[in-house]
């Protein structure tokens, strides 16, 4: 069974690691994450889960602004020019045991990920702290790179920091500079029984309101174009929030307050003065109208559907 977020956080506390945690609605992309924690102290990270032709896996964790060229990396690792690809969706669940959009260095805590090679952006070292998902997309944890190292050492991994934007020549006299990081052990895929247990675990963690894992699991496995990328939708995670008024209210308030916070700043206060309130209100309306209508329509439709289902499955009155 994969580690859960709570277990990871407990681990960090045990190790007396300083970190800050922020809960937010499920996010699948750095841009979405930025909406919730972008204004907090800490640099956002983008995390790629990759594999090579020999079925070895890599996590590349970089600052959101760092340019990562897979072709260059592939050469530097000694895998040739096109040796690195985005890992398939199934591998995310099997090996890292995290949901879509949740690749994170913390995933290495799972035994199934013991052969995964982690490449960290050396840019992390100069940041006061950086954001990573703690095995779940509804939270972001800000942690300093030294503390991240402490964690990695505690699970027996040696942190490897790399200048991800460097492009050193690779040739006869210049061996690939990152070749030493490539996992040497043969990768052992979890055996079938283990696989079933872990996939059930994944579903259990994300039970949708309607309790129909078959429908949503089918959607997750479908080989759509977007399946390779972090951004692909996670049907199970998203559908669960539309039946829950509390979560929706939280999301709406998050979005509204984030606009308020981003608009009420020094330059706007000077510019608009007493009109600041009007300006912020207009901003909120403009940016959120469509989104809120969409959210509430989905809420209505979800509620109606639940009622409909209940009605059509109603037991006849016992006489």
């Amino acid at each position, binding site marked *: 069974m994969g580690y859960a977020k709570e277990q990871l956080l407990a681990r960090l506390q045990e190790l007396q690691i300083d970190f800050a945690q922020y809960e937010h609605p499920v996010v699948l*992309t750095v841009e979405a994450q930025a909406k919730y924690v972008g204004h907090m102290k800490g640099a956002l990270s983008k995390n790629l889960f990759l594999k090579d032709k020999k079925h070895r896996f890599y996590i590349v964790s970089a600052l959101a602004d760092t340019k990562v060229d897979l072709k260059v990396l592939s050469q530097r690792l000694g895998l040739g020019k096109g040796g690195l690809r985005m890992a398939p969706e199934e591998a995310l669940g099997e090996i890292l045991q995290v949901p879509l959009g949740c690749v994170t260095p913390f995933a290495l805590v799972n035994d199934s990920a013991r052969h995964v090679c982690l490449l960290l952006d050396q840019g992390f070292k100069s940041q006061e702290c950086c954001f990573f998902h703690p095995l779940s997309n509804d939270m972001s944890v800000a942690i300093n790179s030294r503390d991240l190292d402490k964690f990695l050492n505690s699970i027996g991994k040696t942190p490897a920091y790399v200048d991800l934007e460097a492009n050193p020549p690779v040739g006869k006299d210049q061996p690939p500079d990152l070749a030493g990081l490539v996992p040497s052990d043969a990768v052992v895929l979890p055996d079938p029984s283990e696989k079933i247990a872990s996939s059930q675990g994944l579903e259990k963690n994300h039970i949708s309101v*309607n309790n129909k894992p078959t*429908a949503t699991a089918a959607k997750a496995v479908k080989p759509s*174009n977007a399946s390779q990328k972090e951004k692909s*939708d996670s049907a199970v995670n998203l559908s669960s929030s539309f039946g829950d008024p509390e979560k929706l209210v939280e999301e709406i308030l998050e979005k509204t307050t984030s606009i308020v916070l981003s608009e009420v700043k020094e330059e706007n206060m000077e510019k608009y003065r007493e009109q600041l309130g009007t300006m912020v209100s207009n901003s909120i309306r403009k940016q959120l109208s469509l989104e809120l209508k969409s959210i509430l*329509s*989905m809420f209505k439709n979800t509620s*109606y559907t639940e009622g*409909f289902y209940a009605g059509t499955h109603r037991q006849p009155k016992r006489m």
Partner: protein
Amino acid sequence: MDKNNSNENQEQEEQVVNPWEVSAKGKIDYEKLIEKFGCQRLDTSIIDRVARLTGRPPHVFLRRGVFFAHRDFHEILDAYERGEKFYLYTGRGPSSEALHLGHLVPFMFTKYLQDAFKVPLVIQLTDDEKCMWKNLTVEESQRLARENAKDIIACGFDISKTFIFSDFEYVGGSFYKNMVKIAKCVTYNKVVGIFGFTGEDHIGKVSFPPVQAAPSFPSSFPHLFTGKDNLRCLIPCAIDQDPYFRMTRDVAPRLGYHKPALIESLFFPALQGETGKMSASDPNSAIYVTDSGKDIKNKINKYAFSGGQDSVENHRKYGANLEVDIPVKYLGFFLEDDAELEHIRTEYGAGRMLTGEVKKRLTEILTEMVERHRRARAAVTDEMVDAFMAVRPLPNMFN
């Protein structure tokens, strides 16, 4: 009123527009199409009237002339002003799983009409048609119908006012009775004239038009409109569907029904340029609802036909050709802010703004749209589809 349409397929046409083919040498000439089909232009006075009657700004597609033609929309508005409601009817032929933005256009507009006028909507999924024309199995076409239903639902239709049905599931009963009544009014020669059937076409095709015509009559939906035989119908659709409804309008008075009114749109141009419709079979001709932000950026940058000049100096000198520039056209569809669009058109047309900037803005807007759609789509469960498709009363459909 309706023009004589007996010879339209025999003429040597530069442009071909019918439900199964849209092509032209160069751009589609919409003026000619309106003239040939005999429908009316939607002018600003109607658009203003819509705004007044609904108490909200007209939809961006109306303001920008995306929905540009109509038949009898005046009468719908007149009746509405008198307190007489109407219902909406639109549909989709589920031929592929991949929906692109062009497919969403009529649904986005229909949703606006539902919200603005507070009227019910029926959505027909012509799985039988695709089974026949695209030679799909019955099961596959039914499966596609359900999959497409999810994307349609994701456009935000109100479940308490919307009935979605697939032909394979719903045809029968009152619907079928209307189909037969309609069929009796249309001669074989007429249907050949309208749709261009030949002796080689199988009889399924020939007998299909009544299926698409029947939803125009309220008695086809006894669970919704019993006792409301007088209820009018408004059909938002792309202009290539006009032939079906010309036939239906011809038949309606003979059956004692109102003629269905139509409100028609242009074709959504393909990424590579304005020579026809987007095609679900060419992935680079369109932006799909399953495309990631990266895909969208890539497609816009690589494939969107640019009206900009070939060099920066020439561009600054001559400006962009807005007539053929696809990014600007797409912004016309999806950029809500009229002022911003005007600004872009002016600056780009004068050469002060470069293609890259226009494409960047478009990518932003489309990515947000597709993200929102994807999220909504993810919330659509099979139970929700069942609920939308259940033959059930809609007591609040006019609220």
